């Protein structure tokens, strides 16, 4: 993609929009703004932003409804930025296709990091076959994982779990999503199994399993593969 990435902000609070505009422009993004959900939908359709930052509490519509409408055709990243911080709200937004969720008040550095991750993921659409993360190397076609050039013995479930998270690096995957992808629909409530496998996997791939940097817990929501 040529030129700066354009980011559309859909938020009714002008102060937040201004703050985001200053921060994002300073970091080399082009910023578009809409104050209502309706305008946001039109702007998204006509201006083709590379990423959308969406507030959930809009004056004219529920942000979740806007998210659903956007996701009918918009395939680029959407990051939710909202004062709502209950696990339910976050999980719902992620389940409806938001790439990430940040609650207000937020730290600008955190937001910029999430934007970078989301944009990178959407740019690298064609998937690499061998993923490198520091000393860890995941060879997807050969189902092989190496750490410091040593082959790790992973069960096939562990491998599926690791590669699922790694392929979505930086993105939060909800418990339900991971359980559904790896074990199937009937296991979506069995978060304890997921916990057990993540703990096993951490012991094998993390440098320090008690301070994980690759398989990062998003409390109450899911896991994110660290950068």
């Amino acid at each position, binding site marked *: 993609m040529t030129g700066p990435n354009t980011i559309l902000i859909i938020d009714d609070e002008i102060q937040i929009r201004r703050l985001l505009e200053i921060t994002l422009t300073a970091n080399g993004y082009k910023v578009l703004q809409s104050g209502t959900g309706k305008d946001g939908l039109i702007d998204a359709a006509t201006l083709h932003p590379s990423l959308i930052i969406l507030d959930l509490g809009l004056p004219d519509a529920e942000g979740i409804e806007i998210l659903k409408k956007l996701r009918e055709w918009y395939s680029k990243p959407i990051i939710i930025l909202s004062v709502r911080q*209950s*696990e339910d709200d976050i999980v719902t937004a992620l389940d409806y296709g938001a790439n990430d969720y940040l609650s207000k*008040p937020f730290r600008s550095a955190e937001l910029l990091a999430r934007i970078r991750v989301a944009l990178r993921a959407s740019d690298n659409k064609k998937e690499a076959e061998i993923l490198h993360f520091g000393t860890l190397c995941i060879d997807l076609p050969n189902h092989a994982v190496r750490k410091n050039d040593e082959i790790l013995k992973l*069960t*096939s*479930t562990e491998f599926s779990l690791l590669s699922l998270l790694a392929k979505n690096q930086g993105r939060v995957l909800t418990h339900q999503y991971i359980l559904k992808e790896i*074990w199937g629909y009937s296991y979506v409530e*069995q*978060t*304890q*199994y997921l*916990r*057990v496998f*993540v*703990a096993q996997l951490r012991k094998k791939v993390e440098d320090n399993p*008690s*301070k*994980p940097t690759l398989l990062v*817990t998003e*409390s*109450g929501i899911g896991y994110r593969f660290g950068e």
Partner: protein
Amino acid sequence: MKPTKGIDKKSTSQPAKTAGHYAFSILVIGITVLICIPLSSNQGYHVVSYLLLSVVSLLATFMGIGPVFVASALSALVWNYFFIPPNYTFHIDKAEDILMFGLFFIIAMLNGIFTTRVRRQEQLALERENRTHTLFQLTRNLSKASGTNEVLNVANAEIETHFGITPYFILQNGMNKLIINPEKKDSTFLTEKQHSIAEWSFTHLQKAGAFTQNFTADENTYIPLPGAKITPGVLVYKAKEQFSGNKKTFWDTCITLIANALEREFLEEQAQKARFLDESDRLYKTLFNSISHELRIPVATIMGASDTLLNSNNSADTQAALCSEIFTASIRLNRVIENLLNMSRLESGRISARPNWHEINDLFNKVTEDLQNELKPFNVITSISENMPLVKIDFGLMEQILYNLIFNATQYAPVTSDITLSAEHVNNFLVLKVSDNGPGFPEDALPCVFNKFYRGTINKTGGLGLGLSIVKGFVEAQKGIITVKNRETGGAVFTLTVPSEKPDIEHFEINEP
């Protein structure tokens, strides 16, 4: 309560008893006459008259006037017919016999009258005693009853027992208005018109309804309850009769007693309400003062620092320092807001724990990460017991609990000291401990550290005094308990215990493809 015998039910078997008395007196006279027949032949007929007279007098001591009269008439006639010559006639010759004949009646009458009078006195005394006993019982029950409802229960029961009527009390609301209870659609339910009669009786302090001078057409009787200072309400009942004499006095006394008890409860409740209002007023003021302080200080910092940034030429170092101040102030502001929101969630009862499986390690990492700036000057030690299973906890609540406890520790403990975080799993309970090497709590303050608005004596950054009460609320929302102790080596240790079963993961391993 043992119901006392009703005084209006005292003589249900009276007619049967009287008939028995008549039969008995006739029988006694008959036997006496039979005994006297052989006696009169050798002792003379006057002896018979003395004997009969004695028997009649004896009967008069325990029988009513009727049977005694029958006994005396019978003895006079029998004596006259069988014993006075000429025998088997009612003819009397001698003046002394005529005198004796009359004497039978006079003595019998006098005896009967006196006995009846004595017995009537006895009866009255008994009734009086009954009434006194009942009043005593009523007074005792009323004074034992606490709360308007209990007083009403006692009153209802006593009135039903002693007067056989079902009372219905309408009380006032504290502002001299009767409380109309339209939901109460039972037998005592009153029509709107009847309610207005009750209102009238209440405001005019006059009886109304049946057997009174006002609104006589109504089937109910309405009596304003005569309190000493206020009128607690109105008594409504369906009167069957108008009480009179002693019974009326008794009724009035009962009503006064009940009214006084209701008034007592009423005034007590009002005093309590006033105390409560006073208390909440005090709380409101404390809250208002500390909130305005806690909000203003960071806002002042942000305004001041940003103003300096905008209006003067600052060196890069100064700019960075000011920005850092703004950042710190905003984090503090955010903490105040979080605590206020959490408190209001707790107060409104909208906190319900939703436990799910988590690793304790994740919890400790999250909290220490969130507090990394505050924890920088300290030596943080985390210890998790070996073989710690997954725990079923509400991560969000737990995180807030540990955040507040550790944040508290950072506010009181001296820099470079240890702040220890430990976790173990004992008998399906998760036990977490947060301990520091600060000054601990004054011994007398230990019981109230979890109270709302409790604040330590040495306080670096003010604070609302809500942190620990939120901690307690969140622990209790998870059916857990939290305790605080001073450590022997100095500092405080908070121990929280929440139920957490072990996960059942056996069969899942088998499913491994």
